[in-house]
């Protein structure tokens, strides 16, 4: 899918803490979300997935600090992009929900328990469009509930009267209230069972077809991403280590971490294989290993991995258009160094 970009994250750097004891949570993350696309972000707990979502929208609570980079939001063709990170507060406040909306992780705690759903939905609209009438806001709230397939009478319900799935739907409706161009989903289905999870994700896809927004889908559930995302970015220890379309990532992972991640859940189709975990533990962001951050846990590590830090570069193989990977295995001329599991399929077959 080749379309124009709508959200460009360039070299985003984020610290937690302001002084000498600051921990770098994101060290130069670059990602591009194209118009109409679903970009999945996968990675284990603590790798910076959620930090990325919150930092890009400047919602990161203290002691978060953005130390560099840009988050460019492209508007209509021809107009220059806006950097969300350099917007003054008032402009950021007015643009945030209108252009980029977020569905937060905990739907259970994101709704205020003392207000009815109606009030909470109309509040978001009123905050951005004070000139709208009460009636028009209510109509819009009704429309939004219908969009997420909730009965209209739920408008006068309190959050505790809704199930987890219904509350998550309300959160999605709230995020869509101002027809944003970009929707960031931060583990929207974590607390829900698989059936409700599937319903909600499919409903979101349907809404995307209808309304034409783009989605950044953050989850640790790689199988979910493989089935629904167009492209997947894999993160590890505050960096993106591989970006490719979902199909290629699933069939031919290039980064050892992606490969290990895919092997840690049973395959969706095809023959059964042994599910293996990833040995070791996620690195301490305050004491990162030198060189490649994954090398202490990597089964294919080379001596160079402990010394050189690989950048995210285009995959060198023909047919890997648009794929990027940060792994020294693929940078060398010595192609025999590339393990079969990470090499292009055709070559490994002929070898």
């Amino acid at each position, binding site marked *: 899918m080749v379309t124009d970009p709508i959200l460009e994250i360039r070299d985003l*750097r984020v610290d937690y803490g*302001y002084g000498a004891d600051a921990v770098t949570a994101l060290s130069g993350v670059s990602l591009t979300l194209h118009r109409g696309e679903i970009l999945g972000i996968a990675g284990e707990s603590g790798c910076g997935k959620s930090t990325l979502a919150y930092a890009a929208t400047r919602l990161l609570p203290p002691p978060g600090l*953005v130390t560099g980079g840009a988050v460019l939001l492209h508007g209509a063709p021809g107009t220059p992009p806006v950097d969300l990170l350099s917007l003054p507060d008032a402009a950021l406040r007015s643009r945030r929900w209108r252009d980029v909306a977020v569905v937060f992780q905990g739907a259970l705690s994101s709704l205020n328990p003392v207000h009815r759903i109606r009030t909470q939905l109309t509040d978001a609209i009123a905050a951005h469009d004070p000139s709208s009438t009460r009636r028009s806001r209510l109509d819009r709230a009704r429309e939004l509930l219908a969009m997420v397939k909730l009965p209209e009478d739920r408008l006068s319900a309190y959050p505790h009267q809704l199930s987890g799935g219904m509350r998550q739907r309300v959160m999605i409706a709230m995020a869509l209230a101002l027809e944003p161009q970009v929707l960031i989903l931060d583990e929207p289905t974590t607390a829900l069972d698989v059936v409700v999870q599937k319903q909600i994700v499919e409903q979101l896809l349907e809404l995307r077809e209808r309304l034409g927004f783009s989605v950044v889908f953050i989850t640790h559930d790689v199988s979910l991403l493989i089935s629904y995302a167009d492209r997947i970015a894999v993160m590890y220890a505050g960096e993106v280590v591989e970006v490719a379309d979902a199909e290629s990532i699933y069939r031919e992972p290039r980064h050892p971490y992606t490969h290990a991640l895919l092997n840690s859940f049973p395959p969706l189709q095809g023959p059964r294989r042994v599910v293996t975990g990833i040995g070791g533990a996620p690195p301490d962001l305050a004491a990162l290993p030198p060189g490649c951050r994954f090398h202490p846990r990597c089964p294919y590590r080379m001596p160079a991995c402990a010394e050189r830090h690989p950048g995210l570069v285009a995959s060198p193989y023909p047919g890997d258009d648009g794929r990027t990977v940060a792994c020294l295995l693929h940078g060398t001329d010595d192609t025999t160094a590339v393990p079969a599991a990470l090499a292009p399929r055709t070559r490994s077959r002929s070898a």
Partner: protein
Amino acid sequence: MTILGTDTAVADASPAPAAVRSPRRIGRRLLANAKVRIGLTIVAVFWLLAIVGAWLAPHDPNELSPDTLQGPSAGHWLGTTTTGQDIASQLLAGTRPVMLVAFGSGAIATVIAMVVGVAGGFLSGWAEEVLSMLTNIFLVLPAVPLMIIVASQLPQVGSWAVALVIALTGWAWGARILRAQTLSLRARDFVQAARANGESTRRIVFFEIIPNLATVIATSLVMTTLFALLAVVTLSFIGVTSLSDWNWGTVLYWAQTQQALQRGLWWWFIPPGLCIAILGMALALINFGIDEYANPRLRIGSVGAARLRRQGIRPRVGFTPVRRTAPARDPLDERRAG
């Protein structure tokens, strides 16, 4: 009250649970806070004066002299009273009783508050009801009139009697706060888990609950001490306690009866007032420091608020600060700098 700001949900998410922090680490972290350092230094200076002040005093505070109503001079650092007594000596002699009563009754009141508050929050049934009712009664009792009545009924009102009276009337606020926090802690999962794996009630109270209350108790101690300081000075000022025992309130009492304010004898009433204000400020600073330590929302790492402001960082929810490490990138910034 700032103590209530201790956000329990955020405290849960903080990486180091209270029980793991060693007292030495807590001390180091607290001392890294400039407010705590300044506050503790001032308190330490006053304690030093409390210990050596009586010997340091150039005159006997009761000694009458012909030099009446003199302004500050080399002979009388802070001038003299209408009867020629040396005010500096009176203040120095008065520091010890003030400090003893303020800190003594602060400690006693905190112990009472801890027992009543934690027990009231942890127990259930009639014991909880009784303790809660007791707290409420002491909360609504007007403290100062009660202190006046009790103190004036005591035959020989020494410092310790005053301290006891203040402690007995000033513990209720601390108990209330500790009870609320204990109630919240009692319902947390880790306490339920401790109960489920068979820990005794005593162990739950001392190993699960109390360490989590440490900062609340510390704050309560500081605030009660501040209350006791003001109370003891008030009691002396209105003349309830023995006037032969010098303390800052007594100096103010004599200044008041001799109409120092109307006669413009500033050296008589400003120094004791300043002593009270500075010590009170020191205690408040310590309290702020503990609060910043205990409340992660106020905590801004090891960096002081002033330095953050200089760096252009304003920590706020919803508007993450952006500080690009290569600042010369923006042409606007360059113009401003040049």
